[in-house]
């Protein structure tokens, strides 16, 4: 059975802005899906509808058999613990240490008092330390996050999502603020996680070339509409035009250069 089912998902902000228009697709467990589209297409909104950071206007989203649109309170929180999220701007508490930020990923499992006081079990701490080490940050474990580079901060973000022990990761432009080297490390890391742990990954990307290299399935969005859903190999220039509109010319040129090189 599909892990994620999105059915006729529509999202309006306020009265006018139609951010998502009747989107339908399924994601099987273990998939690595790249969501591409120009800025303002609705990529971020789509991810935020899945973990209900924004409310859904109409349609249905089912994750692991549970219908998301009507979830509230404790049930919504429980659902969110099983979906990790990674952000373009890392969204860490910069003044806190790496391990403290990573342990935030456990807060969804806490009762009120434990959560308020930030009480973590020894096992949770060991688990967090192990994940931090596996991402190559053992030396930074007790450093404040404002002393880290962008690539390191993003790895902290990934670690925070992984301690949730999620079934799926939502990555909203995880490399948009990184230099090419750091971007490659992050994408390789996500790819590794997907391969070794089988965690399903949905990653929003502005750059087609990265999406084509890493994703095994591409979803193209333009102005809130799903305009492509399929293998990266079959994405034609015309379809890139359709997804990116007028921006596409440069992109296709870029891709040709890349393949020529």
């Amino acid at each position: 059975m599909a892990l994620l089912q999105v059915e006729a998902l529509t999202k309006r902000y306020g009265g006018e802005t139609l951010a998502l228009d009747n989107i339908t697709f399924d994601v099987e467990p273990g998939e690595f899906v790249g969501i591409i589209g120009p800025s303002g297409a609705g990529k971020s909104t789509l991810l935020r509808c899945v973990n209900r950071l924004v409310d859904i206007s109409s349609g249905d989203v089912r994750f692991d058999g549970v219908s998301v649109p009507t979830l509230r309170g404790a049930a919504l929180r429980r659902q969110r613990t099983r979906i990790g999220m990674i952000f373009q701007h890392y969204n860490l508490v910069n003044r806190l240490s790496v391990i403290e930020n990573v342990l935030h990923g456990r807060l969804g499992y806490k009762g009120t008092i434990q959560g308020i006081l930030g009480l973590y079990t020894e096992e949770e701490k060991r688990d967090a330390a192990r994940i931090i080490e596996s991402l190559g940050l053992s030396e930074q474990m007790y450093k404040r996050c404002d002393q880290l580079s962008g690539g390191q901060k993003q790895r902290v973000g990934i670690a925070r999502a992984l301690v949730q022990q999620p079934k799926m990761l939502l990555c909203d432009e995880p490399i948009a603020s990184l230099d090419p080297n750091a971007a490659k490390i992050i994408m390789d890391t996500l790819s590794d996680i997907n391969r070794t742990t089988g965690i399903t990954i949905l990653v929003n990307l502005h750059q087609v070339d990265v999406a084509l290299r890493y994703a095994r399935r591409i979803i193209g969005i333009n102005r809130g509409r799903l305009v492509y859903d399929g293998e990266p190999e079959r994405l034609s220039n015309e379809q890139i035009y359709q997804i990116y509109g007028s921006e596409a010319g440069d992109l296709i040129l870029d891709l040709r250069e890349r393949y020529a090189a």
Partner: protein
Amino acid sequence: MQPDIFQLRQRQSALFFVLLSGLTYGAILLTNYDVVQGLTAIPRAFVWATANFIPDDEAWQRLPRILDKLRETVLMAISSATVASALGLAVALLGATTTRPHPWFSPPARAIASVFRNIDVSAWALILLFSFGQSAITGYFALFFVTFGFIVRVMIETIDEIGTESVEALRATGAGYLAIITQSVIPACLPQLISWVLYMIETNIRSATLVGILTGTGIGFSFDLYYKSLNYSSASLVVLVIVVAVLLIEALSNAIRRAVL
């Protein structure tokens, strides 16, 4: 296009200058203010002050009593600042866009802050004199209200500026509302909060002197008493003590700020 903008700017400044001069001249005429006499009086005031405002032996003997009053004033300033800040932080959390439980909470929180902050501390003291009479409580609440209004206002801004991204990340992990506040918003905003509380303590020590004159408490009362009984040398010692105290507190809070930021 460009020269027009510069010309417009010049004309605006000229107009502003003419208006300001007109207003000043009008005010001088209306109040029968003698500019020459007013300016020449300044040196004379200095001469008078240096001749009369010098603590003599008798004044120095009163020092313990003055210091006792100073302690009362400083304690009142600190306790009103800290308690009002705690309450102010709670209201700011309810009012800030990032942390409000519901959008309806923001307008009343901002309105309350605005009322409490925009009524001057001496006006609060006069209003409260009706309820509590000449007592320490009047002064305490006057300082309390102003601090409260100020902290609500600045912390709403700080929370929305610093907290938004990490709040989003913690919401996505499934963390509960209170855990998000204590584990992410407060740690992220703590340096600013401490800095503003220290600032309000400094401000309150200065205001407490004035409020003390109105409410007959603390060091303001000492000053009023000596001044009205024409005991200028003792009054001057009070002023000296206040100045030293304010400078000390300022130095201390700057040291704390450096340590926490």
